């Protein structure tokens, strides 16, 4: 029996039910198929997520439900702004019925996140342009959470580079969490789930399925620039495939490890083609490792990486 630590996924449970279902703020609805007067109610929903976000109040713990089958396109870096704190955006529906948000027109198209405590759940995000630099661009946005979302290309040579790109202000993206998401993209322009450009505390990636094309030796979960700390990192139970043939750093790369890093990387299942020098993270990172299994051989089970302490 293994308990699933949900402590940083931003949706604690009580008696088996997520407590965000107990809503103390206002509730607004979104449905692109609606053609009438938009008021944000169930029967008169807004037609865009941004329209609903604009109805919310910061600090009010408002919830936006996006109806199954909803579809909208985002063509600029200003069309959808997640700029109201404490809003939860929850898609309804299963499989291809889930709401779909398609980013197109330019590789600078993005969804800015400029407020704290925003949750996005159960939405499909389509990349419909080559090398869209970042699906989400975080400015001052602590505790941003992506849960049960799918990130995918609309077709060949249409891809996201990174899913979340933080800005350069230290600790502005603390508590960033990505859980139970799926990102499959064979494009060689694919980057990482997180491009972290600043110190960050509490970065969490749990139970994600990530299968990316080879882009140099970029890591699948995060890339961290020189001189930046990642404290209390929590990366567990992800399945990651990236068929790098040499110098693979499969989960996280730090440009230097002279910084103060803490946290754990555990129970991840990793696949590469590097048979000699594969790593889970950059050497010397100070992160604690437990039971990560890596394989670079077809038909062979993963082996413990890094090797066990004694």
């Amino acid at each position: 029996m293994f308990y699933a630590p949900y402590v940083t996924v931003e949706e604690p449970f009580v008696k088996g039910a997520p407590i965000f279902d107990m809503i103390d703020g206002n509730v607004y609805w979104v449905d692109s198929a609606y053609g009438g007067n938009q008021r944000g109610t169930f029967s008169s929903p807004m037609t865009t997520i941004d329209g609903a976000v604009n109805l919310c109040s910061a600090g009010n713990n408002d919830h936006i439900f996006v109806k199954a089958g909803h579809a909208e396109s985002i063509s600029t870096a200003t069309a959808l702004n997640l700029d109201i704190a404490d809003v939860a955006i929850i898609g309804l529906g299963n499989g291809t019925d889930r709401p779909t948000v398609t980013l197109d027109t330019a590789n600078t198209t993005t969804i800015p996140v400029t407020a704290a405590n925003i949750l996005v759940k159960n939405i499909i995000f389509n990349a419909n342009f080559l090398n869209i630099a970042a699906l989400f661009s975080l400015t001052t946005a602590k505790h941003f959470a992506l849960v049960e979302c799918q990130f995918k290309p609309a077709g060949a040579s249409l891809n996201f580079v990174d899913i979340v790109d933080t800005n350069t202000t230290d600790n502005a993206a603390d508590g960033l969490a990505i859980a139970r998401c799926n990102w499959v993209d064979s494009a060689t322009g694919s980057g990482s789930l997180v491009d972290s450009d600043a110190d960050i505390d509490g970065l969490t990636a749990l139970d994600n399925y990530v299968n990316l094309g080879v882009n140099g030796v970029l890591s699948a979960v995060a890339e961290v620039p020189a001189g930046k700390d990642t404290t209390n990192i929590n990366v567990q139970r992800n399945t990651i495939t990236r068929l790098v043939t040499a110098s693979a750093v499969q989960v996280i790369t730090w440009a230097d490890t002279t910084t103060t890093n803490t946290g754990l990387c555990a129970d991840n299942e990793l696949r590469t083609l590097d048979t000699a020098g594969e790593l889970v993270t950059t050497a010397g990172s100070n992160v604690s490792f437990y039971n990560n299994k890596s394989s670079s051989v077809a038909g062979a089970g993963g082996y413990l990486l890094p090797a066990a302490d004694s």
Partner: protein
Amino acid sequence: MSISSYPSGFRGGALIKETALYDTIDGNVYWVDSGSGGAGNSGQFLSPVATIDQAINKCTNNNNDIIYIKAGHAETIADATSLVADIAGVTIIGLGRGTSRPTLTFSAAASSIPVSAANVTFQNFVMTANFADVAAAFTPTGKNLTVSDVVFNNGGTNLNWVNLAAVATTDNNADGLTFSRCHFFEIDTAVEAVADIDVDIDGLTIEDCYVDLGINGVLSSLVEVAAGKDTTNIDLRANYVSRLVTASAVQLITWVDTTTTNTGIAAWNRSRTLDIAGELLATAGSNTHFANNLSTSAIDKSGYSLPTADS
């Protein structure tokens, strides 16, 4: 936006858009909001009280009442009497995510929440130590206190927790004490452990917690048990514990003596230390059952099975 109120619930169920919904809360519900609440309010959603204690005082023993704390609520705990959980069966649930979760700030070394009633739950809070050496967030003398999804942090340098729960006085009064899915960050060297146990206790549970503490001698991160005290049916599972003790590390739980009757399990824990020679998970000879615990004291090494496997 208007909202309908069904103060008596719909105990037989209701059809909403042809979906049967059942009212599963058999007790009363009260609301707390420091922003819009008042001591004289009814405690209803549109008339919340201002403090958790005011809401508790509206509850009824063993009625399975629920108190919802609105997102953004903030409250200061200045002593050990202003918030007292003295009504049995009350569940206190904070709403909101990240920094909008309700925040309780402990502003004196003796600030604490006494829990004198049984079956009380606190869920989804941020609890902040804002004074040097705050002795304990909770002082339970009631059975089955559950604390889940709570972040314990501090207000700055030299403002710190010592313990999260201090259990004293009477054997078995605090049986069933549980910490679940909590975060405990405290680098101060006065920090001791999640639970300071000075009595016999049954069913102490700490699971799925992330604990990163400063070094205080060789104190264990999860539990310290006083001499002559039994811990039966202890359940320590799936915690991450980091404390960079360099020698004689006992990472999860210390018993001052193990001549007592201990039972239970420590499993699926991951721990980090700097002790490369004598590290233990628990005091030797404790009679606890160990399974699948991994420990490391080296950079770039995976945790190894500790203690070594039976055969």
